[in-house]
């Protein structure tokens, strides 16, 4: 047992740190450090900077053009990016669909799709949830009918994060209604410029346009955009979700945001209030404990051992912590968190408000963060998974 990183890991971290310092645009990190609105250009600029270095797919193996890092190196990379104020990489391309394409796609599909994901040029969206399929993903109803060398897709996806920017979307579609719901699902890659696709915004509690509805009206999808076998999509979907959940703990971002909470609390004079400070201290303990749990998982992964059964707990804890720091930041701002000013989320806003630019976005972030215990399999579904593993039934 050893808590220290190896000298090789430490010099790896130094290398990453120096690169991020030299390459992360300051206007972008300013927005991240202050929870200001990131636009498409911010996100894609950073994706392309990473892509040029070959790091947009930082978890990819070498054979697909990735750096081939192990679990600890990937963690250190994510940590350096998070602490420096890099935007969270939009995961749908490099983190979610790419591993599925690698594992189950054809060599032609590898050549066709992976380079655009790595470079950051092609923006991917996720087409999983539907109005009737939230946590119960296997109940998807969007239909794909095979006609010759095409599928004809009809239906609706929802909660499509940043789908307004999407070039491509990967979708779970129903290709058969026979047997169990899980057996009739297929995994399709769809060009979002295809005729028949309509994207409509959903405005969330924070007033922001982050998620969308996507409608499919007789959309023609060439059959060579099917991943793997028809009706085997559920297997691929589960593979993808396994990748999503370890990433979702986001402990590095939590560390950065806890530091910000302390700065805010000091500036607002509540850091010396024992009642408030105890809440920060409790959150600090929560974050250290989560980080230790993450490190345990990484250590097991790097050693090539069977994944620890704590991995499923990371999503629950990580999301609760994200909500808690956003809540405490809002409370630190006090009544000056309350003004609801859309423009305050923009960098450089100079509104004539007593609370100023620092406090105005806090409540919006708090409201936005309510999503974290709902998405990626609600925390209640996660508890079902944990209890099933524990009880064995």
């Amino acid at each position, binding site marked *: *047992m*050893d*808590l*220290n*990183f*190896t000298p090789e*890991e430490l010099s790896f971290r130094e290398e990453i740190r120096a690169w991020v310092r030299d390459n992360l645009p300051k206007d972008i990190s300013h927005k991240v450090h202050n929870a200001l609105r990131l636009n498409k250009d911010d996100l894609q600029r950073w994706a392309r900077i990473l892509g040029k270095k070959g790091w947009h797919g930082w978890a990819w193996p070498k054979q697909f053009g990735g750096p081939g890092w192990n679990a*600890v190196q990937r963690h250190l990379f994510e940590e350096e990016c998070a602490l420096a104020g890099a935007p969270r990489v939009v995961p749908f391309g490099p983190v979610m669909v790419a591993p599925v394409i690698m594992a189950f796609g054809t060599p032609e599909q590898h050549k066709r799709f992976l380079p655009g994901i790595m470079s950051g040029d092609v923006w991917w969206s996720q087409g999983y949830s539907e109005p009737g399929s939230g946590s119960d993903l296997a109940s998807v109803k969007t239909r794909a009918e095979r006609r010759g060398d095409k599928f004809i897709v009809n239906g609706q996806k929802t909660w499509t994060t940043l789908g307004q920017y999407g070039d491509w979307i990967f979708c779970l579609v129903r290709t058969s209604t026979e047997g169990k719901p899980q057996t009739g699902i297929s995994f399709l890659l769809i060009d979002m410029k295809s005729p028949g696709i309509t994207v409509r915004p959903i405005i969330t509690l924070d007033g922001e346009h982050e998620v969308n509805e996507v409608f499919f009206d007789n959309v023609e999808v060439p059959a060579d955009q099917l991943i793997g076998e028809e009706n085997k999509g559920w297997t691929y979907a589960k593979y993808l979700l396994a990748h999503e959940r370890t990433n979702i703990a986001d*402990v590095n971002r*939590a*560390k950065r945001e*806890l*530091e910000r909470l*302390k*700065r805010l609390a000091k500036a607002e004079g509540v850091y010396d209030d*024992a009642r408030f*400070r*105890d809440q*920060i*201290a*409790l959150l*600090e*303990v929560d*974050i*250290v*404990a*989560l*980080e*230790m*749990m993450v*490190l*345990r998982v*990484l*250590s*097991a992964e790097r*050693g090539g051992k069977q994944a620890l059964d*704590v991995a499923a*707990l990371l999503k*629950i*804890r990580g999301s609760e912590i994200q909500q808690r720091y956003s809540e405490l930041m809002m409370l630190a701002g006090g009544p000056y968190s309350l003004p609801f000013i859309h423009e305050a989320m923009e960098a450089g806003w100079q509104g004539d408000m007593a609370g100023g630019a620092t406090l105005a976005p806090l409540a919006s972030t708090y409201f936005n963060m309510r999503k974290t215990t709902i998405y990626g399999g609600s925390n*209640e579904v*996660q*508890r*079902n998974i*944990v*209890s*099933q593993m*524990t*009880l*064995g*039934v």
Partner: protein
Amino acid sequence: MDFDFNDDQESLRDAVRRWVDKGYDFERRRAIVREGGFSQKAWGEIAELGLPGLVVPADAGGMGFGPIEAMVVMEELGRGLVLEPYAHTALVAAPLLAGRSAPAASAWLGKACAGEAIVVLALQERRARYRLEHVSTRAERDGSGQWVLTGTKGVVPAGAHAQAFIVPARVSGTDDDPAGIALFLVERGQGVETTAYALQDGSSAADLRLQRAGAQELVAAGEAFEALNLAVDRGIAALCAEAVGAMDRLFAITVDYLNTRKQFGVAIGTFQALRHRVADMKMQLELARSMSYFAALRLNDAPQVRRLALSQAKVQLGQSMRYVGQQAIQLHGGIGVTEEYSAGHYFKRLTCIEMSFGDTMHHLGEVASRMQDTAGVFA
């Protein structure tokens, strides 16, 4: 960064687990509780395993192991709810005796390592709560220049069975002045009186009354307060590991029960309200295990780093112990509150651990006052 146990640690774990499973079952434990919560015979068996000298340097007669081995042993003792004061003697008192120049220190250390004597830290004072700097027991020199101690310490672990005590006492200053505290070695004898009682977990403890009791200075004022803090931090790490072992076992007992007990014609483990409780208990258990590792891994670090880490660990463990303990009882229903069933005894032990070496609120205060601008494991 590596969380694997090496082969030596695994065989140490196996050895302790074998003894606990075969030699310390629930019935034997109940018998020991009835006899006052300490068995000389069981203590002898622990000594036969070579455990009392576990973390004492080899040149001082011990095995020279460190915090990870201590953690491994404590997890296993916790699993079996072992009553004998292993942590207090072997992991708190013995390292305090090692390398001291007091004439009697090495003799007591030798006896402690051999399992021939029980030596414990007598720490608690009535108004101190968990503040280590609050010491009103006085140390003064008698006519011949020998130290004599006067004062009362409470809830001393295995106090009635200890042959010697390590006692923080005040040589100068007011009741809360850390610089005026020295550590003394007090042997049983004139002016030393113990009054035994059982604790809620069935273990034996005592009040220790010192009336001009003869003492040898173990650590002089100035250095003593950090030595005391380190000893307590070792105790915290040990109890964290013990708690993980106890929670591990209690959780397994509870899961078994949920899969066996039937109501409304089905196993109660099929009810989602209870299943989610299981998931939450598992969460608290794994957070606790993670922080017990953290405590052990930070125990040899610089005092400032160590102190913050150990308080962070105790805060997590405190929350986890209360949640896992209370919910284990709730999920068992009526059987959980009976004396004859094991679950309640785990709960009682976990509760005692929370209130030893500083409770959750005390250590939350420590964390709050020691927080840095940075955050996380490597802050």
